[in-house]
């Protein structure tokens, strides 16, 4: 019965395709250039509106500088709702609950992609990518760094998001201090810890290291950026998705993170990425481990007091070898959007190769190989090679068979549970062992209820 139906639907779709093919050829629009494509889009959608729910992010700031070009090209009006990344996920999930179709594009962070796809709030875009009319050749999907397009935009092998900001994490360090005391940047986690201890309090008001560690997701996220050096299951087992938070490897990682941040400013347990970055660029910390996407703020003399005396090295190696974060943001299309095709057109324009330079020049976080290898741009930003080097370490983690953000629905929740208990260990409310055991128990209980 089932097979019969499948056969029937196969036959029907074959017929449909056969019927459509001539008509496509007959009316195949000219989309070979951006202008021609724009005219084609305009003929279909002129006068319509597109609503975006996005986070406050440099990539979005960059797009705000040139989205009007898309409006002019196509006669479509684009509205941005910009909110902070902390509430973006909740707001999008509530929208997903209501299925009200208020938005046509969500910006979704890498860690939330499995949850959004798992809960069927966003749609796969493989069909769009395969369709030569919807995705013109000049878009050049292959030019997106595979680490990003595959690493953060997919779940269960399905492409659901187009990266608008890819990032790995690396260590920023103060070259003036390292020279003054004759130190080398850290290659291993042991060296990293030793250096943090060395510089902590070495000078008036100087701390060893600065990282995000505010209770909950922030802390969990900070933890993950060092954990994979010690363990394959930073949050859960990479294949079974069972929590293994009190396994010896993971406990070693927790212990390292707690020890490391004893050399951070004393209120580091309230630091989000924002405070962590501020402490570093205000010269309060000798080292900093966080996102490559924040590099702009570190090397910009108008925001940073250390822009002249900073350099970067990849995430240090640990007992498990090389590792590195893979995170960032994607444009996705909500399942309840009534304008999915138009949304896709907007994504094509904004993230395509032709606008990539405009995007980066306005401060957007690059995701394309052609940008990283562009000599003019690389000359303007000396950190590009450093970022690519850090990315190599992130790829090493993939080679190990581990996905940085576990590809299952509850990554965010597990990360938050981990971050809450590690935070308790940091303020010595719990020992490492207690924190890991209790986190494990709560993770198990949490997943049991699913």
């Amino acid at each position, binding site marked *: 019965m089932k097979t019969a139906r499948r056969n029937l639907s196969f036959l029907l779709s074959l017929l449909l395709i056969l019927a459509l093919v001539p008509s496509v050829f007959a009316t195949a629009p000219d989309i070979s250039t951006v202008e021609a494509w724009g005219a084609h889009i305009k003929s279909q959608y002129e006068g319509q509106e597109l609503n975006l729910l996005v986070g406050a992010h440099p990539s979005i700031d960059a797009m705000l500088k040139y989205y009007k070009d898309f409006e002019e090209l196509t006669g479509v009006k684009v509205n941005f709702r910009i909110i902070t990344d902390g509430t973006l996920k909740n707001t999008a*999930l509530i929208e997903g609950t209501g299925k009200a179709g208020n938005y046509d594009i969500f910006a979704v962070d890498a860690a939330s992609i499995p949850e959004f796809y798992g*809960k069927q709030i966003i749609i796969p875009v493989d069909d769009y990518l395969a369709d030569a009319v919807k995705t013109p050749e000049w878009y050049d999907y292959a030019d997106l760094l595979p680490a990003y397009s595959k690493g953060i935009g997919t779940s269960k092998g399905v492409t659901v998001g187009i990266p608008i900001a890819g990032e790995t994490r690396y260590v920023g360090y103060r070259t003036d201090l390292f020279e003054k005391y004759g130190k080398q940047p850290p290659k291993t986690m042991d060296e990293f810890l030793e250096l943090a201890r060395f510089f902590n309090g070495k000078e008036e008001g100087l701390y060893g290291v600065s990282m995000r560690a505010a*209770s909950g997701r*922030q802390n969990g996220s900070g933890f993950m950026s060092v954990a994979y050096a010690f363990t394959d299951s930073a949050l859960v087992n990479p294949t079974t998705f069972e929590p293994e938070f009190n396994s010896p490897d993971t406990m070693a990682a927790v212990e390292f993170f707690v020890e490391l941040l004893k050399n951070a400013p004393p209120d580091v*347990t309230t630091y989000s990425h924002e405070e962590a970055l501020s402490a570093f660029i205000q010269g309060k910390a000798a080292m900093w481990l966080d996102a490559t996407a924040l590099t702009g703020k570190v090397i910009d003399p108008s925001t940073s007091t250390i822009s002249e005396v900073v350099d970067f090295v990849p995430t240090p190696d640990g007992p498990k070898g090389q590792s590195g974060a893979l995170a960032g943001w994607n444009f996705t299309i909500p399942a309840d959007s009534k304008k999915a095709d138009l949304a896709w057109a907007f994504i094509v324009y904004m993230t395509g190769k032709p606008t990539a330079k405009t995007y980066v020049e306005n401060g957007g976080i690059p995701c394309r190989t052609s940008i990283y290898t562009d000599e003019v741009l690389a000359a303007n930003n000396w950190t590009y090679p450093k970022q690519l080097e850090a990315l190599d370490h992130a790829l090493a983690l993939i080679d190990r068979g581990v996905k940085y953000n576990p590809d299952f629905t509850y990554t965010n929740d597990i990360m938050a549970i981990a971050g809450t208990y590690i*935070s308790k260990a940091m303020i010595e409310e719990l020992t490492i062992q207690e924190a890991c055991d209790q986190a494990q128990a*709560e993770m198990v209980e949490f997943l049991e209820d699913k």
Partner: protein
Amino acid sequence: MSNGVSIHTDKRATSRDLHNTRRYMPFVAPAMVVMVLLVAVPFIAVVLLSFTNYELAMPADSFKWIGLRNYDRLLFGTNKLLYYSLGISVGMMVVATVLQMLIGFFCASLLNRDIKFRGLAIACLLVPIAMTPSIASQIWKLMLNAEFGVINYFLKKLFNFSVVWLDKDNSLPSVLLVNIWSMTPYVTLTLYAGLRSLPLEPYESAVIDGANGRQVLMYVTLPMLKPLILLTLLFRSIDMLKMFDVPYVLTQGGPGNITEFIGLHIYRTGFGVTTLVGRASAISVILIVLVGIISLGMIKLMSSEEKG
């Protein structure tokens, strides 16, 4: 006697007319109907949700009734946060309300003295009331920053020491501090208004009887202000239990869960950390019951005061 806090009916108003439902319905009914419409459905929904496993945006087929499971997990599960959270919320409610009342009363009596520029001082007190809480808390967070906050800058300059305001020892007092900043002006202005409106005769006779300042305060001022003080106390304590903005911005509940007050606990369970709307609803129900008990108690106290 009738005054602002009387909720028992006026004894003088005994004419038949006043009992007539038809007479007062046009006045009372519209507001009540609006309120019931606005609140009943969401409230029932919250109660119902508390018996489900509902998560934000969960696929319909995995949505199910789980009976008392949420309450069981909250009260007897691994995570004992609910007790701690309720504990600090009630503790903070008591401490903050008492401090607000004391400071507020003190400032009100200063204002009530014969001073110049009173209008200007009152205008200053309006600032914390009018400032958008979400922005004001952000500004406080910046001012309290241990490394580059203006408060530590002053402390260093004037007394040569600094405080890590948001670490594990100080984050609760810091939340208290910001709360006192934002809420005390309400108390000050209300009590100042109360003081202004007190009749003069009792004071005159107290002076004739040779009472000293403390006695006047204890036996004249406070008894006359009592109803107002109780009403202020009621509103302040309820607002304290609901407190959300300040810890949400300042600490996000941390470090650890040290500042995870009950409002924040609901948020973090339902939206912020996990997306367990069902369980967050169960916490809400518990909170509503608790607040109900507290305010019922206070209202009883108030009306017995009036009768007595």
